[in-house]
């Protein structure tokens, strides 16, 4: 299995990864649920965001890694960046970007956004973040994601690592714990499930510290 940095030709697979990983194993796409935008429109906005080349947040091509299958196709993908490297949190950068491209929807969705923010866990500054971990359905069960995560960890072997995931995505949580991550913080709000904003009401922060 080959691990490589993503290229512009990988963007369709990356957009698919963002959409599917945001669903976190469920049916709800949070940005459609909270902001009322269709998946197709959100996909176009993601392309526009990638065009802006905004570092230190997940939607930047520079931060993406691909695990290739033997036939050279992209099997698994993730985004990894150092949190807060430029002095601003990735959550702030993402919010500013979304607000810029979806200003009306953002302003009309304040109630939903406040509910979602209730389970926001501040990412740890200087930790390498792993986000939007996604394996193509035809390549699941073959160890691509485990090898991709370990490959990225080896690339930044002196760093600490963080993953945030919905607790309801039990397969993902099990994999991360198997690799050596452990739960550091848990935030829940039952209104999130009641309002169908996410596929689960609890968010986990998992950490894997160097050494």
């Amino acid at each position, binding site marked *: 299995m080959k691990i490589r940095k993503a290229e512009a030709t990988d963007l369709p697979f990356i957009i698919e990864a963002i959409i599917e990983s945001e669903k976190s194993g469920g049916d709800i796409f949070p940005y459609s649920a909270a902001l009322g935008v269709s998946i197709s429109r959100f996909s176009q906005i993601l392309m526009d965001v990638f065009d802006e080349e905004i570092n230190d947040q997940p939607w930047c091509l520079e931060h993406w890694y691909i695990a290739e299958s033997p036939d050279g196709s992209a099997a698994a993908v993730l985004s990894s960046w150092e949190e807060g490297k430029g002095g601003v*949190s990735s959550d*702030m950068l993402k919010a500013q970007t979304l607000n810029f491209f979806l200003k009306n929807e953002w302003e009309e969705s304040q109630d939903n956004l406040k509910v979602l923010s209730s389970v926001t866990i501040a990412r740890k500054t200087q930790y390498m973040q792993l986000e939007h971990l996604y394996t193509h359905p035809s390549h699941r069960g073959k160890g691509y994601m485990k090898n991709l995560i370990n490959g990225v960890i080896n690339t930044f072997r002196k760093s600490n690592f963080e993953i945030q995931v919905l607790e309801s995505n039990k397969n993902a949580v099990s994999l991360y714990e198997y690799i050596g991550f452990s739960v550091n913080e848990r935030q829940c709000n039952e209104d999130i499930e009641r309002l169908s904003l996410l596929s689960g009401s609890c968010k986990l922060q998992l950490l894997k510290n160097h050494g």
Partner: protein
Amino acid sequence: MDRDQITQELQPIFAKVFRNPDIVITDTLNAEQVSGWDSLTHLSMIADVESHYGVKFKLKELIGMKNVGDMIDLILAKKGAS
């Protein structure tokens, strides 16, 4: 319009958005130092500042703001420093 004037004008905006009447505005003030300064309140504050000064920040300008001083620099550049 100068830096001190903008600093004074930002105080009531920040006090309202971050619900802290005693907040002290300095160039180095940033989100890590203010309780309640998260992505939602940040965007409310930006909207209020844009409205107050009649300016519009570009995306590159927004993501480049590391602290209040950066924002004051941008306001001065857009309004013209005296």
